[in-house]
């Protein structure tokens, strides 16, 4: 059941006009720079610093609890990180693109046209997250580094190579966007095939070619469409639509690749490890995660990597192999492995939703105080600086988390069933694997 949102003139004009999106982007860029500034010159106390609170509590809450589940890559449409680089690349903010590229405009190497690098960058951030998430200066350095890397890559390479291949957030947002009930698609593929100039990909006088290096006419999944709306502006045939659709519509599409499958394991495993380290009662593990560079931290890092890249995939491979053996399927194990890994997408998303509820509801009170005193300098801009810390909805938290995890498991089981019928392999072992990791996650959260 799809419903085209762009059939409403108001929505369509809001999306086609550059100004509404640009205004949001300006605000986001201002907030982003402010977060970097507060990290560098504000209080080093994390829970009183705008950078920590607005990036890791407010932004993360919006991203994982609302934006990704409902809008997929909706965040990417208003993300400020690639903006300065993109403006430099284009030589303009609003003007039509120049005929000749201003910079090197190189193609991204074919061997790296996957999300393995994004898996690496996310893993690196995850390994140091205990420090990044609590030390304002480190947060500021990471955010500034992302900004400058994005600028550098925009100068060297064409389009948004940083977003597509490097951004540690973009990888999992793309993976989970497959489950979102929102999509950008062409209305009639034949029109695209007949279109000679393909301005949606190549750009035209009215807009830029797809910054995400995607030909909208070939879109079947949300994974790499950044919802930047350029194709909506450039398509001369009004053939681009924004649709609502059922959840997980893309998960019945061709299965994910091995790099994307490992992204699913990284997300699933990181959510479990974070739940243990940040929410669990194990002081030794917490201390090890925080003592970056110490022997204990190397032990933590080794366990982190072994769990995500060893134990989880190995158990999953065992489940998939058992299914293949039980049904005596002729399809290769690799194909079955990646096909069933698609089923882990909703489970991972719901793991992150459940985990994020804990620390977002626990720390949300700091949003109001740091809004009034963003640098911890004793300001009280909106009269909310002295609002005392208190966790919200504590009685609802555990039931909500439990329902979220059970919902995620059911969603994954249904997806596994569909995948199983396509690859002709019983989904039972994969469902058992998903049930066991859900029980483990439930135990960590409870």
């Amino acid at each position, binding site marked *: 059941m799809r419903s085209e949102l762009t059939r409403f003139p108001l929505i369509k004009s809001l999306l086609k006009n550059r100004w509404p999106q640009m205004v949001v982007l*300006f605000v986001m860029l201002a907030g982003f720079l402010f977060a970097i500034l507060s990290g560098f010159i504000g209080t080093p106390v994390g829970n009183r610093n705008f950078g920590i609170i607005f990036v890791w509590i407010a932004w993360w809450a919006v991203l994982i609890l609302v934006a990704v589940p409902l809008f997929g890559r909706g965040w990417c449409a208003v993300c400020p990180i690639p903006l300065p680089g993109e403006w430099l690349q284009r030589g*303009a903010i*609003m003007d039509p693109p120049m005929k000749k590229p201003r910079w090197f405009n190189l193609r991204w190497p074919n061997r790296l046209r996957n999300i393995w690098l994004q898996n690496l960058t996310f893993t690196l951030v995850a390994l140091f997250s205990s420090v990044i998430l609590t030390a304002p200066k480190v947060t500021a350095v990471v955010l500034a580094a992302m900004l400058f890397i994005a600028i550098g890559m925009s100068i060297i390479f064409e389009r948004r190579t940083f977003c597509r291949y490097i951004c540690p957030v973009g990888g999992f947002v793309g993976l989970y966007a497959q489950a979102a009930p929102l999509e950008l698609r062409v209305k009639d593929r034949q029109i695209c095939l007949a279109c000679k100039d393909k301005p949606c990909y190549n750009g035209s006088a009215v807009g830029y070619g797809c910054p995400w290096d995607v030909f909208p006419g070939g879109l079947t999944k949300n994974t790499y469409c950044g919802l930047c709306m350029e194709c909506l502006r450039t398509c001369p045939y009004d053939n681009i639509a924004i649709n609502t659709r059922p959840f997980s519509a893309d998960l019945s599409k061709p299965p994910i690749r091995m790099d994307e499958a490992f992204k699913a394991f990284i997300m699933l495993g990181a959510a479990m490890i974070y739940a243990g380290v940040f929410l669990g009662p194990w002081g030794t593990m917490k201390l090890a995660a925080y003592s970056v560079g110490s022997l204990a931290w190397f032990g933590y890092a080794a366990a982190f990597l072994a769990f995500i890249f060893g134990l989880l995939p190995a158990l999953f491979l065992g489940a998939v192999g058992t299914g293949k053996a039980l049904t005596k399927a002729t399809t290769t194990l690799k194909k079955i492995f990646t096909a069933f890994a698609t089923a882990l997408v909703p489970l991972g998303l719901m793991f992150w939703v459940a985990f994020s509820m804990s620390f977002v509801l626990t720390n949300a009170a700091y949003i109001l105080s740091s809004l009034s005193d963003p640098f911890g300098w004793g300001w009280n801009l909106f009269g909310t600086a002295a609002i005392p810390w208190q966790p919200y909805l504590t009685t609802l938290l555990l039931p909500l988390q439990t329902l979220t995890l059970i919902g995620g498991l059911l969603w994954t089981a249904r997806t596994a069933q569909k995948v199983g019928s396509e690859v002709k392999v019983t989904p039972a072992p994969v469902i058992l694997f998903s049930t066991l990791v859900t029980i483990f996650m439930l135990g960590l959260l409870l």
Partner: protein
Amino acid sequence: MKRTELLSRILVITGILIVLAAPIAARAIGAQGVIEVHGRIAESGGWTPSTIRVQAGMPIHLRLTSDDVMHGFAIGQSDTPAVDVLPGQVTEITLTFDKPGTYAYYCTRWCGPNHWRMRGIIEVTGEEPVSPQVTTPPLYLMLNLDIDAPHPASVTLDRIPDAQYGEQFSALLPAAYLTPDYYRSHSPAQIYLDLRADPALVSLAGSDIWDLVAYIWLSNTTPEGLAEGQRLFAQNCAACHGETGGGNGVFSANITALAGKTPANFSDPAITLGASPALLQGKILRGGMGTGMPSWGPLFTDQQTWDLVGFLYTFQFK
């Protein structure tokens, strides 16, 4: 360049300038005439700045904030009440020093193993030079006590000496034993030996003599002084010496690991009853003893030191 492009560039540049420059400018304006003092645990540097210079009679406005954990801020030898310094929040106080001199400020919260080293100095200068003050040296110096020498008391107590019991024999007690000079310069064990040898008290049993020793101690204290001593001990000493004086405070393990010595155990009669008030005064004022105990001289007034000394004997007497 189209007008929209121009407008968007102006918006972006203006926005970036406002976002980056406005907070810095606002802070610079707000900081005029104010000294911002940052507290960090001693291992991370303690107070910044660690020295504050001010004119006598001129009020100074301090904005105190902590960069890590909860600290407290107090001025040594002063009646100004201590204030808490909270992480990421600002506590503002205004101080005026009437007399030129050097004042110590210090942390009043157990913020870390080296909490005691979290101190700073306020140098107060005046237009007129500081007039040399005639001060009396502390009693332990006047008595030429070696405060590092062991001072064990070989005493055996049948029960806790009780000042209330001792009072009933006070009529027998020569008045010279009750003077502050005598009390402060003799350890309880020495007082016991003096009383035991006194012909006026020959009829008393050993336990009665100890009750009289306790009575002499109590006669040289006041309830207010003991309460102040208890407050000072809880705030400054209990972290190492323990709440019950047993030498087993929360930081005692750190002290032992660093110095190879344990904090003094005041619940041990051999230690406490062998130390005179003057000796304890010396240890408190100077610190050291190979345990890393800090010097409390700059922080406590003379009366506070004697109050604290008086309180230490509550671990032996009642």
